[in-house]
């Protein structure tokens, strides 16, 4: 079998085996659904509660998307600012790091006190997601080929021309790598904030559904919501990988297949 086919077939086989074992375990040991629902029940719950869950998914995805866009704009914007002025970089970079290393689960309850809930959720998504964009873009802007910088100097390029025609295109691969990480992280940020808000009682995102279903011992719905979240994460990853490929396919080594 070809390498390509194996990469598709093998994970599918593993999935089938896991589902089969899961199903058999639930059946053989007669586990009640409020302890562990079988895969069939999860699927039928997903269909039965489809409307409600899809609405919640939409709410979470909108937050994730807004967080992601803000993280992209903020991360790239800050990186450019830091790159233009050493003073600004030295003044603020440590705080960007502190913002990143403080666990978001611990910050979320505080944000929920001071900000209206939708804004607090968005802030969480942003805090988690912006740092990889900032760190990667900063690295990219600093890694410009020295000879190309000399060339731009030779032709008396302005600061603006150097940024626009040299530094930003040169940093694009790292920038896209940062954005790819940020996509997944903004989903995590949104979920963490929704869970934290869930105990406060308001909200309608998918993570809130999970918390709510937990209180009601509606375990099948928890699994169904989790499955949707997982699929959303996978979809975000593939979408961003595709964007990455579209932007770099003509020139960057990472997108070129090696011939052996």
């Amino acid at each position, binding site marked *: 079998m070809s390498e390509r086919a194996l990469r598709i077939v093998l994970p599918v086989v593993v999935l089938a085996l896991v589902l089969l074992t899961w199903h058999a375990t639930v059946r053989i040991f007669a586990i009640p659904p409020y302890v562990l629902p079988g895969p069939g029940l999860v699927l039928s719950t997903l269909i039965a509660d489809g409307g409600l869950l899809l609405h919640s998914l939409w709410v979470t995805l909108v937050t994730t998307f807004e967080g992601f866009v803000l993280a992209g704009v903020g991360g790239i914007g800050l990186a450019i600012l830091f790159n233009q002025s050493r003073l600004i970089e030295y003044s603020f970079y440590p705080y960007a790091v502190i913002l990143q290393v403080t666990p978001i689960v611990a910050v979320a309850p505080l944000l929920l006190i001071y900000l209206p809930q939708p804004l607090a959720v968005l802030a969480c998504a942003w805090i988690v997601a912006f740092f990889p964009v900032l760190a990667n873009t900063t690295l990219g802007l600093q890694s410009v*080929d020295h*000879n*190309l910088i*000399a*060339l*731009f*100097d*030779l*032709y*008396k*390029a302005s600061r603006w*021309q150097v940024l626009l*025609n*040299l530094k930003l*295109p*040169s940093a*694009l691969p790292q920038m896209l790598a940062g954005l790819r990480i940020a996509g997944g992280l903004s989903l995590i940020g949104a979920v963490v904030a929704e869970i934290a808000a869930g105990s406060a009682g308001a909200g309608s995102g998918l993570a809130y559904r999970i918390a709510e279903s937990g209180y009601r011992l509606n375990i099948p719905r928890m699994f169904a919501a989790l499955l949707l979240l997982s699929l959303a994460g996978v979809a975000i990853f593939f979408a961003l990988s595709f964007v990455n490929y579209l932007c770099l396919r*003509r*020139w*960057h*080594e990472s997108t*070129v297949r090696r011939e052996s």
Partner: protein
Amino acid sequence: MIPAGAPIVSLRGVGKTFESGTVALDGLSLSVGEGEFVSLLGPSGCGKSTALRIVAGLSAPSAGAVEWPGEVQPGHIGFVFQEPTLMPWADVAANVRLPLRLAHAEEASARAAAERALARVGLADFGGAFPRELSGGMKMRASIARALATEPRLLLMDEPFAALDEITRFRLNNDLLALWHALRRTVIFVTHSVFESVYLSQRIVVMTPRPGRVSAEIGIPAPYPRDENFRTSPEYAGYCRTVSAALSQAMAGAP
């Protein structure tokens, strides 16, 4: 031999000391005439690249001065680096257009100039290719086309063919001479190859290492056009022997 015209650029007692304390150049004096092909020859670390960067204005001398006695302005030069130094995200035509774009030239005239420059180096059909799709020699041709795009009177080349294989290097040597002959530009060519410098130049400036200064100047009065016959002639071998001896002498005092 093409007679050299009035000096286009002169270095007067140029010295360069780096922040680390390394003395790269000390009292380097050199004058290059309009239309001349001059090579700076020396071992690595003799400051020949530093001298070229000072002429280009990319680096400021710590002592001495660079004078431009003629009508050529200090900024109006082309520079070819050791590596092709092309922007990998832009196609070849856009790379060649870059100097004109940075000077805010009109788009249509920039395109025409880039096409002309590409045709001159034999890359007329490769404007749409990306650098990674080209061979090492073709990348270097694109780099030369970019340096020619602004039609500079002075072309500075910093060991441009050092990383290429011998066959490609010989072809590019011939093409460079043809370009020089057709365009009548002044060329300052940095190399560590005795054979390359003799083949190309009217005059070879041999430099001493640490600190870099002029050790000998040797004229190569062989007529142009030079071709493979010249490369295999006893005359060529004789010049190479003379230059090699001068280089050994320059190295004698070095560690």
